[in-house]
């Protein structure tokens, strides 16, 4: 929920008073974030989420609002409100609900049956989801910082259509000849190391990884892993095959 709206939430909020509230309003959704300084120690800090769905039916100058709870403990519990809505436009959605909610303009009523004529699909004008996110923090907290993984909000961009692209290609081959691990390590500017999977020599390159396995009757199996095309893998194998070792001082 926070991730979804992270671009609209300030990174840091100063907690000068006992509580701080933020409200994000759109035509179909209202998100309230309430930060309450109540806890005595860090163990008391916790979050609560409440969600309600508001549905509005309008006939003439009367609007009937239904507030339906979406929480698991009281799912489906409803409350009804009546609003005299002559002065407000029809389709304000979230902003309108924020404006009238909790005011005398929105009067609680008891029975839907009485208003069945109004509460039908053709009169339905608005459906709004209201989420209350309550954060309880310790009383001596000075500020709250929203450090949500903002990369998640960019997920939509990552989800854009893309054609297949190679991300990992592995090849197998063989080489023969007397291979000097020290010479290869020195030439490739790498520490002498054995590789995983039982390989004797492990060569990291910017194009991928080449592994040389044990001698088997003069032949050695090689694997090229994490390459993007065979041209690059061939290049690295040829590079190793063409390698020389320096013998300074001779």
């Amino acid at each position, binding site marked *: 929920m926070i991730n979804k709206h992270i671009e609209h939430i300030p990174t840091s909020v100063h907690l000068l008073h006992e509580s701080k509230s933020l409200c994000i309003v759109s035509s179909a959704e209202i998100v309230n974030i309430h930060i309450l300084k109540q806890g005595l120690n860090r163990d008391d800090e916790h979050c609560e989420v409440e969600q309600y769905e508001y549905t509005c039916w309008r006939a003439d100058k009367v609007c009937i609002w239904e507030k339906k709870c979406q929480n698991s403990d009281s799912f489906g519990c409803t409350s009804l409100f009546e609003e005299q809505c002559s002065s407000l436009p029809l389709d304000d959605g979230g902003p309108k609900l924020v404006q009238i909610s909790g005011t005398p303009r929105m009067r609680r009523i008891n029975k839907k049956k009485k208003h069945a004529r109004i509460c039908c699909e053709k009169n339905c004008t608005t459906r709004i989801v209201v989420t209350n996110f309550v954060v309880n923090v310790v009383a001596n907290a000075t500020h709250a910082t929203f450090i949500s993984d903002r990369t998640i909000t960019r997920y939509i961009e*990552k*989800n*854009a*259509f*893309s*054609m*297949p*692209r*190679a*991300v*990992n*290609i*592995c*090849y*197998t*081959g*063989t*080489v*023969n*000849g*007397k*291979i*000097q691990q020290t*010479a*290869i390590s020195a030439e490739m500017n790498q520490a002498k190391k054995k590789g995983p999977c039982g390989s004797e020599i492990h060569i990291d390159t910017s194009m991928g990884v080449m592994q040389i396995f044990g001698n088997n009757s003069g*032949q050695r199996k090689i694997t*090229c892993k994490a390459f993007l*095309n*065979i*041209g690059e*893998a*061939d290049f690295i*194998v*040829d590079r*190793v*095959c063409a*390698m*020389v*070792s*320096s*013998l*300074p001082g*001779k």
Partner: protein
Amino acid sequence: MCVLYACTASLPTIGTENTRVTATFLFSQNCNVFIFTKQLQIEKSSDLVMHMLVLYANTGCKMDLSSFGYTVDVIRRMLPVAEYTPCIEEHNIHAIFRWPSVLDIYRDSNSAPLHAGIVAQDPVVPLATPDEGNSIDFLKQTGLTLSITTLGTCIYRFGKKRCREGTHDTDHYTFPEAGYTSETEQMIFKVCKHVHKIVSSS
């Protein structure tokens, strides 16, 4: 500025059984430096062959991956028979499609002569060049696994399959080696694009 020049002279008579010693002369205007280098005699004794090829793509839209959903239906209608493993609720959000032979898909994606059924009954497709013939053999021995999530992320994994062709007890038998070239790789990329276009349209 000191400019270095280098030249190499092979001295094969100095080399041992597995090495050849070469002399490299580096010299500049003011100094002469001699460094001997030893050629490691490593030779490639066989061409590289792909054993796993992974491609990433995205359909750009959410996918209906249910067993009787649209994606499954489109893939069944437009691609060769695939083994389908649905999403497992509360366990993962991806479905898996497996094709035992990429060649079947390649035939689908390829040009008119292959579509026309000329070679449909012949497992070895007659092609113009030997290279293409090798590639076709390779595609025949290669399987494709597509993992696709409800968010449209597609992972295409091509892999050399172990052969169960012919007899019943040849689980450990492997296909004879088929050549793999950059042309083969391009054919695999082409197959993948073909599949992805179909999957993305679903």
